[in-house]
């Protein structure tokens, strides 16, 4: 295998397993696609003749659109399979669908699924490259990559940044992927949440834990607000959204504790007034939320390039 160029992985199942060099390679490649996406003609022929399937077992607007655009701009044929998790029994349909789709010779399968490990399972059953677009509360690697690209372009580096991830870490795949990526690239990560929204032993992932919003964001370079995933709340994790916003939302009172030039991020979709104040979200001096969306397409192009682009030939030639 050629180790000087390219990306030595068959699938992108998570940030776990990626080296800093892999991450840097993807971010560098994505930087180039940012420029391409701002041109009048956004399309290249890199993946002409390749088929990319979007397999979403969970509702998604931005991520599926972002992947679809990314594939189209690289010249691939794309197809969206919105597999509603409610209409078929979970899991059974995953294997059945995978086997069926595999017979159609897709080159890449992009999967989002409510169960952690679904992308791993799929990757064992198909010949196509598998890209994890979010599996349960496990990982969402392209989100972490686009967050990293946003930070690198805005602040010039990731190493030694002080990043506070705030909110529903327990149910968040975005949080896990970001913790892994930011730490791999040398950043310092804290998490800020009520104890009920933190998973067990989260400190074992090397993060500093705060239960106080002001203390948690004081001195941070970046504040990453997570969506309060109301649809996943099976029990009473927080007493009310009102109380949550008061103590753990990002509003002017909390923000006063942060550095004046703090960068504010949110993976979307936002619950305005629940985890983030509307005015703060729209303050383009500090909020990079729309940059995240823009760079998401570039990052996904880089991932498709990494797995399906010219480097694939070298990978397949390897024994």
């Amino acid at each position, binding site marked *: 295998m050629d180790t000087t160029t390219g990306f030595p992985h068959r699938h992108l199942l998570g940030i776990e397993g990626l080296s800093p060099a892999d991450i840097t390679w993807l971010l560098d490649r994505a930087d180039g696609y940012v420029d391409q996406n701002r041109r009048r003609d956004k399309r290249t022929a890199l993946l002409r003749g390749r088929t990319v399937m979007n397999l979403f077992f969970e509702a998604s607007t931005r991520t599926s659109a972002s992947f679809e655009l990314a594939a189209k701009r690289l010249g691939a044929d794309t197809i969206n399979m919105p597999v509603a998790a409610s209409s078929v029994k979970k899991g059974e349909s995953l294997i059945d669908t995978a086997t069926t789709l595999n017979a159609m010779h897709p080159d890449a399968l992009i999967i989002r699924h409510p169960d952690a*490990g679904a992308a791993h*399972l799929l990757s064992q059953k198909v010949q196509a490259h598998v890209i994890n677009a979010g*599996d349960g509360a496990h990982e969402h690697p392209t989100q972490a990559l686009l967050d990293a690209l946003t930070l690198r372009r805005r602040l010039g580096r990731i190493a030694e940044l002080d990043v506070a991830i705030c909110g529903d870490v327990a149910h968040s795949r975005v949080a896990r992927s970001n913790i892994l990526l930011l730490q791999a690239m040398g950043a310092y990560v804290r998490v800020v949440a009520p104890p009920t929204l933190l998973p*067990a032993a989260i400190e074992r992932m090397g993060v500093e834990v705060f239960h106080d919003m002001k203390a948690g964001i004081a001195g941070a370079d970046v504040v990453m607000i997570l969506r309060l995933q109301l649809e996943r709340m099976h029990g009473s994790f927080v007493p009310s959204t009102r109380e949550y916003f008061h103590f753990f939302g990002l509003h002017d009172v909390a923000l006063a504790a942060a550095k004046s030039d703090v960068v504010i991020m949110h993976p979307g979709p936002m619950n305005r007034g629940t985890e983030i104040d509307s005015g703060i979200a729209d303050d383009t001096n500090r909020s990079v939320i729309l940059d995240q969306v823009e760079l998401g397409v570039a990052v996904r192009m880089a991932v498709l390039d990494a797995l399906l682009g010219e480097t694939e030939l070298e990978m397949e030639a390897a024994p």
Partner: protein
Amino acid sequence: MTTVFRNARLLDPASGLDAPGGVLVEGKRIAAAGAGLFADAAGLPEGVAVVDCQGACLAPGLVDLRARIGEPGEEHKETIETASIAAAAGGVTALAMLPTTQPPVDSVHGLEFVARRARTAQRTKIFPYACLTRGAAGEQITEMGLLAESGAIAFTDGNHAVADSLVMLRALSYATAFDLLICQHPEDPRLAAAGVMNEGEVSTRLGLPGIPREAEAILIERDLRLVARTGARYHIAHVSTADAVALVRRAKADGLKVTCDTSPPYFALTEMDVTDYRTFAKLSPPLRNEMDRRAIVDGLADGTIDAIASDHDPQDTDSKRQPFASAAIGGAGLETLLPVALDLYHNGHLSLLDVIGRMTAAPARILRLELGTLAPGAPADLIVFDPDRPWRIDADTLVGKSRNSPFDRRLTSGKVLRTVVDGRTVHLAESP
């Protein structure tokens, strides 16, 4: 028909015997067993069948405290017939069958059906449990007296804990009238409800909802108070945490009539075996951490944990080939019980006699069965095994109907060479 087993290392945990010797079987029963018996091949009685054990171990057949069989209701996973084949291959000559079938065994006619089917099993003796509550729903107690009269060996709701404290109090209290054994799955169902594996760093990294370890200790603590009040015979199934071992140790010191068992996954595996979303390692209770695993070993070594059960729970491939959270719970265990348990001996934690005792004399005592012994007059349920023969467990070569072994590809030492039930050889291993 008379058979002589000679040239064996006799292991009889019930009497503490561990010595070279032989066994004389007449018909279905043991006529004599002892050190030095039939040492001289020349002095054998005429007209008897002779089995030369060639120095291998000869012990009572294993008595399995707990196995789930798919019949009735899930015959595609395991039938009584296929389970008995697997049992014979694993040296299990008697097993207690969980009542959580479909439908559950919670009525006299259900029990009689299962008991009748069980008698058709040629290779192992099957003793049915009955449900402790109707439908194993945890609300109303079953006709425990009538079920016991019809042959229920003990009462349990399988892998459903009786969560309601009042129901459990009444069940324990009522059971004392008939001196019945109640067996509990120790897990607070509300604490465990959302979880699919042990809660901790591993579950956090995998993004899987965890079951807090306290779920086990909380239910055991509650039950022990009810047992102290009622004086009922109470058995805790598959303890998996250090906290549970400590609780049982103290309860026994306090003189409570409590026994417990564990099963091989809890002293041989940990939650690390779940990484990569390995659904074959999805069990109930979930695999715990290394500290717990060591505490289980210690509990076995000091006798706090009385017995080792297979916890056999057959699941077909389709129900395991799912994303982890959706995959079926349980592992096939009959065929791997002995070799994995022998790790305890090979690693120096228990003597060979004690390991065998945890799977013979101890479960027989808990279930009050006249089994698990080489005493003259006992049924001739025997195994011949080589504790040192290497065996790489290969799920694909297991003889049971479901091959969902959490021990797939594990290298073990110990193999059952021959299994004898009522004097009849029901399993003979191929020569190495």
